[in-house]
């Protein structure tokens, strides 16, 4: 116990002090090795054939000429993938099946002695597409008769049965009856690319013992390792992931973009294979923070108390689930904000569209919801004729309140944060708000 206390106090020696980064010297001297800097002897370059349409049927594909192309060691399609599904929810195809679902989806991959040789080989792949009608807009995608993104439909079925993921607390209808004003708002957020300085990159090779080694930019190495062991159908002791310093992730490297294909080509050729995305590929075809649409309907009394809130959420997940489901869960739990709302209904839906899939990105699901919720709060304040600060004090959570999903809150600092914000921004608060505390 004493030893532990000593260690803890040592830890606080660093708080408030400038601590040099352990890898800082490497950064300023250029000696830090990033994944895109890894070079192996005899390393092959990978390039992929990507679907030029938002949605298409691959009527035929012939890679025989590409395989004969000069400098080519391997050309792979879905037929060469031991298990062609990956991702956190494993519904994403490593290489496209008959129907492609988004523009830029990988269809075939080449490993060759140079980038030029790889691209020349890709040009020799004979492929016949039938372009199909895509659906891009999430609200169009949930409408009747919309083009189907996936064979099972465009709506994600929660628990395999429900179109809507629900949170219910109190009685919303009763709450709206208590209200003096009803305020409705619709909020949307667009797609956003992570844009790390280093684009996605993998280097894969077989080591002397025959183990597949992948230098990866993955943010969750063990997620990726488990996922890809399944794709490669390799036992975990035959698959080694090497992480390290990466040139930025911002959530984008929670999804697999290059590790799977680099690994497959290393297995197919027995040689080191490097697969790096260009900036254009990274921007256009990697996972993103996907768009959201929020409809919030609030009931509020003249005294500023929110009596009821109904939130309808539509998450545009893109063509595959990736991390979209996780984002919807996080969003649903937090969309009602740091307010005690006694009558609450949250209905979240997730829809598939013919776009790149939804990945994780910096507070994914949460900050998009908070944007909507905070703007809505300001509108509520205007409706009642109180200040934006007041409405937040009036409805703030206190210690011991139950949050929107029924958990008792042990540590709450909404009121203290608001007081600090007011002080920092030079706003004068009425005495009653200055006297408030999160402890009831």
């Amino acid at each position: 116990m004493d030893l532990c206390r000593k260690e803890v106090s040592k830890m606080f020696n660093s708080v408030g002090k400038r601590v040099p980064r352990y890898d800082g010297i490497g950064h300023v001297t250029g000696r830090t090795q990033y994944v895109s800097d890894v070079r192996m002897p005899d390393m092959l370059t990978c390039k992929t054939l990507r679907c030029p349409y938002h949605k298409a049927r691959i009527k035929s594909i012939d890679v025989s000429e590409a395989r004969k192309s000069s400098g080519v060691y391997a050309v792979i399609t879905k037929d060469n993938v031991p298990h062609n599904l990956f991702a956190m929810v494993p519904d994403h195809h490593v290489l496209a099946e008959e129907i492609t679902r988004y523009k830029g989806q990988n269809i075939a991959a080449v490993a060759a002695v140079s980038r030029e040789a790889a691209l020349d080989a890709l040009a020799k792949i004979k492929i016949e597409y039938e372009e199909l009608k895509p659906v891009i807009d999430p609200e169009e995608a949930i409408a009747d008769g919309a083009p189907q993104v996936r064979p099972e439909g465009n709506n994600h079925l929660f628990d395999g049965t429900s179109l809507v993921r629900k949170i219910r607390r109190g009685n919303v209808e009763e709450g709206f009856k208590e209200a003096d004003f009803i305020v409705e708002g619709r909020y949307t957020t667009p797609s956003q690319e992570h844009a790390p300085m280093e684009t996605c990159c993998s280097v894969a090779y077989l080591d002397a013992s025959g183990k597949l080694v992948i230098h990866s930019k993955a943010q969750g190495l063990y997620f990726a390792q488990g996922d890809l062991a399944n794709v490669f159908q390799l036992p975990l002791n035959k698959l080694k992931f090497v992480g390290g310093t990466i040139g930025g992730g911002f959530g984008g490297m929670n999804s697999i973009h290059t590790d799977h294909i680099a690994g497959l080509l290393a297995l197919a050729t027995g040689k080191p294979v490097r697969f790096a995305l260009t900036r254009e590929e990274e921007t256009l075809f990697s996972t993103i923070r996907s768009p959201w649409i929020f409809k919030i309907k609030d009931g509020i009394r003249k005294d500023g108390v929110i009596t009821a809130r109904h939130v309808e959420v539509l998450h545009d997940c893109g063509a595959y689930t990736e991390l979209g489901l996780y984002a919807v869960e996080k969003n649903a739990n937090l969309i009602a904000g740091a307010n005690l709302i006694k009558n609450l209904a949250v209905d979240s839906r997730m829809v598939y569209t013919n776009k790149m899939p939804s990945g994780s990105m910096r507070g994914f699901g949460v900050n998009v919801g908070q944007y909507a919720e905070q703007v809505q709060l300001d509108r509520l304040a205007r409706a009642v004729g109180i200040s934006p600060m007041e409405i937040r004090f009036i409805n703030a959570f206190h210690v011991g309140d139950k949050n929107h999903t029924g958990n008792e809150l042990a540590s709450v600092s909404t009121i203290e944060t608001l007081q600090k914000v007011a002080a920092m921004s030079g706003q004068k608060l009425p005495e009653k708000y200055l006297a408030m505390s999160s402890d009831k």
Partner: protein
Amino acid sequence: MSVMSRILKFYLNGNLVHVAAGEADTLLDVLRDGLGLTSPKCGCNHGDCGACTVILNGYSAKSCTILALTAEGKNVWTVDGLANGDKLHPVQRAFHEYGAPQCGYCTPGMVMAAVAFLNHYPSPTESEVKEALSGNLCRCGGYKKYVQAVMAAARGEFGPLPEGSVENV
């Protein structure tokens, strides 16, 4: 292969090097793939991000916008040539001490842009430093510390800046 290549000769960090260069290769291609010098980074390959910044004949340049063969006979400095043994250049020390790099991928380019700038303008204002670094993107958002660190290096907080042009560093 149909792609031709030639022998390019230039001075890299003070030493004459010979390297095969394709007729349409960029200086960045040659440094990273021809010479295996991976300190200049490729962020966009489009002249936008500045991660590949080197010093070419005394001026900062984005090596992905330089056709390699035009560097024939010229002086190219990368971050590898700045430190004298373990003794870092004041700009490198400043970046490290101020904790400017986060993921660090933009850092080598940022160092070279700052060093070239200070060689020409040893007593800059803060807004001049911001302008000098404006072509170098940092996605982590470390701009403020980079600017503070360059100002500190200019003030001599990390020792005198080496005299003369970068060729004499």
